[in-house]
Structures are given as C-alpha cells and as structure tokens.
C-alpha cells in the first residue's frame, strides 16, 4: 500500500462519513440530465442492424453435419451514440457477450450490419479492420485469465502499441506505459512486476490501461467489474467514469448487475434469449419498465436494506431460460411470463417505440 493511497483513504473516509446519502441529489440529476442530453444529440458511432449470430450444432466426429443452430444473437438492432454509455444487460446465455464479440469481429456474424463510424465492419478486409480495431478496444471480465502470466505488466500494456505501431519509439512507449499506469491509479513501478503479484482490482486496472494504450474511441466492457470484490468494484466504476469524461470515450457496458448499470449508463438494452426485449433511457427503464422480463429482472435484485426488503413485493419469475437451440415460438419469454396469453406463443412481438425513445418487444403492453 502506497502512502498516497492511505492519505486518499483518510480524506475520502472523512468526506464520505460527513456527507448526507443523497444531499446534493438535485444537482447530480441536473448534471446527469445534461450529459444524457449531450449524448442523445451526438451522432451515432456504432449502429447494429439486424445482427444475427447462429452457431452450428454438429453431430458425428468424422463427417460432422449441422443438425441445429444455437441462435445466440437473433436479429437485434440498436445504436450507440458518440460519448454515450449503453448498458447491455441480461442473464447468462442471452447473447450479450456474443454481441460484443461480433462488434470486435472475434465472431463472424451470420447476418446483419455493424456500422462503425460509417463503415460496415462485416466483410471488411483484414487491413482496414486492423486499423479500426485500434479505435475499438475491450476490457474483459476475468482479470486473472486475460493477462498473460509470463509477461511483465509494462509489456502487457505496451503490446497493443506495438501491434498498431502507435508508439514506434521504445522510450516513448515506456513513458506512455508509466503515464497509463498513473492514469489508472497504479504505481508506475508496477511496470516491472508480473500479474500474479497483483490483486484482482489492480489487474483490472492493468486491463483498462492496456485498452487505453492505443487511444481508442470506443471500449466494450464485458462484465468488467463482475469478478471483483464489492469494495473494489466501486473504485473501478469511478475509474471508468473518470476516463470516459477525460477522453470522451463511448462504452458498451455489458453486465448483469442492474444497480451498477443504472449508476453508469445513459441508456440500457435488456436482452433475453438472443433478442433485445426493451431499450430505453436509463432512468426511464428503471422507473417504468414495460416488458414483463425487465420487471422480473428488477424485482429479483435484492436491495441492501432490510426494511426496504421487508416492504418490497417479491415477484419471482418462474422457470428457467429455455435452450437457444430450440427457442420458444412467438415471444421467447412467453413460457415464463405471467401475462402471456395464447397469442404470445404464436406471434413474434414487434420491437416498437411505445413511448418516445422507449422501445419494447411485447404485444401486451
């Protein structure tokens, strides 16, 4: 622990303890409204149209033949504006990570378009893609498996600069690594250490420094804080926010923790079984969720307050997520939905704008 950490800790602790929980809430929401408005007026940076990602399921070892498809992402469309943080939430297997991987071109989408800054990434040649990949970076969930244990921290952070030749001069690269470490709240001396010498939170800071090394515009955060301890999560959330403001970054924030998403995101898209079921501005989605799945998801999150919990109605959604190999007909949520009627099993609901900027895929609302 460095001395500056300790001083920070004392300052923050006293400050925190003497501040009311929601004393300047009015001012905060005004600041936030401004930033939401700014983002809402910005041009679209990423546009996803009818994206489909089907993985073949094969049988037979010698001559494998395709017997079915896993529809990991099934015809989704959304856009991310410049400077915006879009939250993509849903449970495991809903396709949120696959969506991120498609944008990064780590998966070759089955269909649809991914327009980044006016260019379709699908079908782009390797050379142009490499150039674009400098602008699109990713932060992974597990800081233990996403850092090479045999590389020093400094080399890990410098790697993207070598690949993209942004910093050809070695001395400049070393200086940049030190600057990035400082920026991400780490001691520059960490450059000579190995990942195993660091805690989970520190490793995640390294992952962030690596993503920032080539000055990206757009960062995909794939469950970037899920593996961290509660006390460390808030540190990383604050860091992501600071970096967003400082470098005017655009985030796709993939997560399953709904309270964190609410804190960080401007707009939120809810995915279920390969489809986006609801998309709205953050406050709107949390205060007036329209899709029964969104409602169930929000109700399932326990609030850290015993009194609030006692008074809260606990509506629990029954059943489990069906297999994406053979998804339910009609609305994919209908087998678990309380409101479902006979037509829900037949008719695929339209994804429609029910209120201004509030999209939902449910025929019953």
């Amino acid at each position: 622990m460095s001395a500056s950490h300790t001083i920070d800790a004392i300052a923050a602790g006293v400050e925190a303890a003497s501040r009311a929980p929601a004393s300047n809430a009015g001012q905060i929401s005004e600041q936030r409204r401004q930033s939401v408005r700014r983002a809402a007026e910005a041009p679209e940076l990423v546009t996803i149209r009818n994206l489909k990602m089907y993985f073949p399921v094969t049988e037979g070892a010698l001559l494998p033949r395709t017997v079915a498809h896993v529809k990991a992402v099934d015809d989704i469309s959304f856009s991310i504006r410049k400077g915006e943080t879009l939250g993509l939430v849903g449970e495991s297997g809903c396709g949120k990570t696959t969506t991120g991987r498609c944008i990064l071109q780590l998966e070759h989408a089955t269909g649809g378009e991914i327009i980044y800054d006016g260019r379709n990434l699908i079908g782009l040649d390797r050379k142009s893609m490499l150039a674009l990949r400098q602008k699109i970076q990713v932060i992974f969930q597990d800081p233990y498996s996403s850092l090479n244990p045999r590389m020093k921290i400094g080399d890990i952070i410098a790697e993207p600069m070598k690949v993209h030749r942004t910093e050809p001069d070695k001395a400049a690269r070393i200086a940049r690594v030190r600057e990035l470490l400082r920026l991400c709240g780490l001691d520059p001396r960490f450059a000579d250490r190995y990942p195993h010498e660091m805690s989970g939170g520190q490793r995640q800071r390294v992952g962030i420094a690596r993503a920032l090394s080539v000055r990206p515009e757009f960062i995909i955060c794939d469950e970037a804080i899920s593996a961290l301890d509660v006390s460390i999560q808030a540190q990383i959330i604050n860091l992501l926010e600071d970096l967003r403001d400082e470098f005017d970054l655009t985030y796709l924030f993939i997560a399953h923790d709904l309270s964190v998403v609410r804190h960080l995101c401007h707009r939120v898209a809810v995915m279920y079984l390969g489809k986006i079921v609801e998309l709205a501005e953050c406050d709107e989605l949390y205060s007036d969720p329209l899709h029964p799945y969104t409602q169930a998801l929000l109700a399932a999150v326990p609030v850290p307050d015993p009194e609030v919990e006692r008074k809260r109605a606990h509506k629990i959604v029954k059943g489990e997520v069906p297999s994406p190999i053979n998804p339910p007909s009609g609305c994919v949520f209908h087998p678990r939905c309380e409101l479902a009627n006979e037509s829900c099993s037949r008719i695929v609901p339209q994804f429609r704008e029910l209120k201004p900027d509030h999209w939902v895929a449910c025929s019953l609302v």
Partner: protein
Amino acid sequence: MSKLLEIDDLQTHFFTSAGVVKAVDGISYDVNQGETVAVVGESGCGKSVSALSILRLVADPPGRIVGGSICFEGRNLLKLSEDEIREVRGKDIAMVFQEPMTSLNPVLTIGRQLTETLEQHLNMTRERAVARAVELLGMVGISDPGRRLKQYPHHFSGGMRQRVMIAMALCCEPKLIIADEPTTALDVTIQAQILELMKDLTRRLGVALIVITHNLGIVARYADRVNVMYAGRIIESGTAGDIYHRPHHPYTLALLRSVPRMDRPRQARLDPVQGQPPDLTRLDDGCAFRPRCGFATPRCAEAAPPLAPVDAGAHIAACWQAASVADALKRAS
C-alpha cells in the same frame, strides 16, 4: 430460543511456505434454532474457511484448526473422533456449496446420490430411499421427479443442480444447513428462486441456516443476524437492522456506502473503500482495516480493538472509534 451452535474463539490457520496465514483468527458467534445467520465479507476474509471448519472439512495440510471450540447441541465438534464427525456431517449439519457442478458426482445419477445418503445415514431400504428421494425433489420444486432421478448432473441446469444440492442437504432432516455462497454462480432470477426456496424450507422445517455471502442485498433480505468479517475476524455483529442502519465499524459503513442502490437517487460518484484487501501473511498487531480506514488514529496501530458492545442489545463492533463512526453517520443523515 435455545442455542444450536456456539462457536467460541475459533482459529484456523494455514501453514504455507509464505508463512502462517491466520485465515480465521479467533471468531465467536452462535446460531439459535430455526434462525438465519449471515456471515458477510469479501474474498479472503475467512468466511468460507470458518464455515468449513464447523464440519472439519479444512484440508490438512496446509490448514489446521489450532484453537477454540464449536459446540453443536452441547457437543464440541472439534473433540469428536473421525467416525463421530462423519455421523454429524450431512445428518445433523448439511452443507450447500457455491458451485453445484463440482459438488455433484458427474458419473452417478441424481437418484443414486440422493439414495446413497439416505441408505447410509438412515439405514433405509432401497425402495424407501427412492420414494423419499422423489419426495425431496418434489419439495425443492423439480417437476417430474421420478424421471429426473434417473438423470445425470449434466442433464440439469445450474439452478436445477442447486435445487438438487438443497434436496441432498435436506435428506436427513438436518438441524442446521450451512450455505456457502449458494447463489453466486446463478443468474438473478434463478438466484431469487433458490433463495425463496431456502427461506421457505427453513421456515417450514424449522432448520437453522448459516448463509455465507459477499452480497449485501441477499443478507438484507434473508438474515436475522449478521456477522461482518474482515481479515479473519468478525469486526461487527448484530441484527440486520443494527448492521444496515446503525453500523459502528468503518468497514461496515464503507462497504454499505460503496454499492450503488436502485432504491435511492443516483449518486454523482460512488464512495469506494480505498486501497486493497490486506495480505494475511503480513498482518501486524494493529487493526487490519487501519490502512484503508478514514477514522484511523495512532492507537489503531498499537493494538487490534476487541469486539465490544455498542448498545444495550447484542450489537458489537471491533473499533476504537466506534462512537465517532456512529456520530458521523448520525450527522450525515
């Protein structure tokens, strides 16, 4: 209510090449009949090791219970012979683990794993055991239990496996269930289902429950009493209301303030707990939370504060500055 389990000054240490790790360093708490007690803390704070110690499941070497006592219905579990403790495991005290895939045997059917316990512990005949297994699977909400009994763990989803684990835990009608992060590997909607199921079953069957978790929301919803652990020690203990509304330890306070809450207006910034969790091989005599604490004074470096009562009830906290923490909180609200 009478005391079912009394843990007194439990110490479990790990003897590693890097030195002695005091994973559990003198913790004491008790559990009444039918009560739900939570142990909260972050990874490495010793909460899981303390749970494993109750059933003497800590791998030796490197771990060893070096002191204290664990009395279950008046019997000290640490003094029992290997045969006697095996009788207690699963029968009087059952465990539900975090990762249901690794705690089920992949090459045995679900039915075999359930009936084995029933035949071993309760001397049931095969037929009676199967009938009871069907009943148990039905109880934990698995439909078509007769057919499911013949299936293997890989046929079950994560949530279903955790239901099977709970059914196994309930097999011998234990008096106490220890659930170690029972829902951490599950999705939120499934987590809610499993927690409701456990709450419902413990109420109905009068089983006491120890929930080990890092999730403050789960604790708020389900626990009667809460123990907060940090660096191998309990640093605060009390009713859920005490801990959430009147925290007296800076760590408890910081932990509560660091999570964004959906029921409150959004904060401009979160108040994280600064710094990193401590290295357990390098603890000194002072308070382990001192380097991250905003209330620390020179006294905190001299000696670790003992757990002391902070009110007339059973609310205790281990902090020299407990009064100032409470004051600061009162001023703030």
